[in-house]
């Protein structure tokens, strides 16, 4: 018994913070006037601060969309940069309200941590980056290689599984922060840098000579990345879930940041429901009926958010692939608003 009590006592501060934060998150958020989002410590395209400290990226836009849906103002969001290790504790303890931080949806995380995944805002998979000079063209040629990655992520486990399954020895060098992984890989400590493929494209921009490096074709895992909320607050869960769905539905219905005002006069009932002109869908989740209108006005639909942050015209240059709408060859799909 003493063994069980000791760590519990140590976690007392955590436990007390939880008490304060549980309950109706939406009411707390409305009362304090902003959404507190947990983001990465700097991953271009997903959540990255510029030199003036303004955050941007796919995950940041999700947070802005939530702020716009709740307050009608995308700037009513604050950001907490978190390491992979800190992220779940920060959410559990109530330090943040929602965690859009390129986090892979797995069963353990969904079930034992007291958390709920809202949906998927980026379908990713783990890949490998190597120096072109190595002359490697497939991940199966990486036997005996030194591999740099982040600690405390699913990537460490996937590498272990992949190399074991293919009976290849390897050496894993796992760092706490992404910046140090990049530095170590850049300095030649490792032959391979592995993380989610989107992350590889993003981190490659930080290398001394990005063009000397290439991402291998193999994708060795499923990494559905999505925002996370605390379990046990269904209202807040709904707000987050339908913010994401509204962005995807907007793309499907052709509603964009630019034409959202014009679309108000659309005859399409689905558009009318989305923009709050028919029915009272916003009120059902504790918001105003123009919630989706506000969020589209603020950040645009999912396709726009994707293109602005990680799409082909950005330095990351990622094509839609799996993340295209279901009607356009991808698997991005949202339940209808009705």
């Amino acid at each position, binding site marked *: 018994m003493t063994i069980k009590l000791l760590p519990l006592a140590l976690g007392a501060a955590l436990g*007390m913070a939880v*008490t304060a934060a*549980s309950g109706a998150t939406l009411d707390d958020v409305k009362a304090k006037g902003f959404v507190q989002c947990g983001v990465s410590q700097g991953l271009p395209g997903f959540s990255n601060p510029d030199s003036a400290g303004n955050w941007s990226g796919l995950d940041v836009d999700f947070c802005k969309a939530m702020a716009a849906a709740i307050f009608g103002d995308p700037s009513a969001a604050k950001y907490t940069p978190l390491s992979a*290790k800190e992220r779940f504790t920060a959410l*559990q303890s109530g330090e943040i309200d929602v965690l859009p931080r390129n986090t892979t949806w797995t069963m353990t995380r969904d079930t034992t941590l007291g958390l709920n995944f809202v949906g998927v805002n980026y379908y990713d998979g783990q890949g490998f980056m190597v120096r072109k000079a190595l002359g490697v063209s497939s991940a199966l040629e990486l036997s005996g*290689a030194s591999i740099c990655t982040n600690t405390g992520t699913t990537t460490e486990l996937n590498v272990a599984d992949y190399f074991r399954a293919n009976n290849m020895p390897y050496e894993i060098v*796992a*760092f706490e922060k992404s910046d140090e992984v990049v530095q170590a890989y850049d*300095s*030649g400590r490792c032959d391979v840098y592995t993380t989610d493929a989107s992350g590889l494209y993003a981190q490659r921009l930080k290398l001394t000579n990005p063009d000397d490096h290439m991402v291998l074709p193999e994708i060795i895992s499923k990494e559905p990345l999505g925002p996370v909320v605390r379990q046990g607050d269904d209202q807040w869960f709904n707000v987050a879930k339908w913010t994401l769905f509204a962005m995807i539905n907007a793309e499907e219905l052709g509603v964009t940041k630019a034409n959202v005002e014009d679309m108000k006069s659309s005859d399409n009932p689905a558009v009318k429901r989305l923009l709050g002109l028919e029915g009272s869908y916003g009120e059902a989740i504790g918001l105003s009926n123009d919630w989706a209108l506000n969020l589209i006005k603020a950040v645009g639909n999912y396709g726009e958010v994707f293109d602005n942050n990680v799409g082909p015209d950005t330095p990351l240059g990622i094509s839609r692939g799996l993340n295209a709408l279901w009607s356009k060859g991808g698997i991005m799909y949202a339940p209808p608003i009705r």
Partner: protein
Amino acid sequence: MAVQEHSSADEPPRGSILNDPRVRSVFYQLVVVAIIVILGWEIVSNTMANLKRQEIASGFGFLENTAGFGIIQTLVHYTETSNYGRALLVGLLNTMLVAVIGVAMATIIGFIVGVGRLSSNWIIAKLAYLYVEILRNIPLLLQIFFWYFAVLRAVPSPRNSVTFLDSIFINNRGIYGPKALFGEGSVAIGIALLLAVAGSIVLHVWARKRQEATGQRFRSGLSALGMIIGLPVVAYFASGMPVSVEYPVLRGFNFVGGLQLTPEFVALVLALSIYTASFIAEIVRAGILAVSHGQTEAAGALGLRPGPTLRLVVIPQAMRVIIPPLTSQYLNLTKNSSLAVAIAYPDLVSVGGTVLNQTGQAIEIIGIWMFVYLSLSLITSAFMNWYNQRMALVER
């Protein structure tokens, strides 16, 4: 009569029990204990209730689950299929390895620099002074990064390794050297070594007793060295030469086989020992200066040369001043080793962090961390206190 008067004056003044200082002190102590117990119980039950309501799993059952991740440096057998408990053990042993080697190196460097600062040679004294002032004033984390990132960039890739005698290779994946493989029958060598060490200790004790009793000296050092080298060599040949040597070979991306010191380990040990040595040097200098100059003069008057004076007269007395602050430095070094996580050395904090992230058992892991560092520190502290007592001035 006088006796009676005295005893009546000694009796406590009759008054309310509330004014009795003894009753009051007991009462207040009980109140304090009760408050602490209630607060502690409240914290624990509150945490447990919160965890349960949030449906966060708790307890230490997760230690039995398969870890599934690889670790770059393991002192005991570990594979991806080992459990979390095993992974944490690997982390603990890595922490202890860095701590023990770091403490030994820091002590040696610290003593050399500390004595150097008092040298009558101007250059040595100034060099030691520069060492102390530069290294103790740069934050440790920066020094770790320096040794890891700056030095790593200067070292060649595996295919262009710096090679010594075709058996030692230095590259940006680490330092590789030959490794002894102990075959069947090597137990005899181990036993011979243990016997030699035990024999040397007995010989040393005997030699000291005899010198104290008769004044005759017996140089036990050389005989001990002969025993410690000789006996295992004899055992080696007697048991049919069971030891073979494995050399590292470049295969594919990296060297395979042999003994590998990873850059993470080398950088961490260097940074920790060089940084801590700068503090130890100052402690040693202070200890030596604390010994009255009269002692040195007296030793000189007895005909002792400077070397033996330092070794037999000054240092033993200085040790009494040196040991207590030295203990603090040893504890600091052990605790600072947790900065390893910044450069991917798999110590307890790094491995524990991975386990924490995969299982989400934050409270349990942090509990284990605190318990382990507390235990390591208390053990170090207990050992140094014992040593301190041994070195204390014995009045004869």
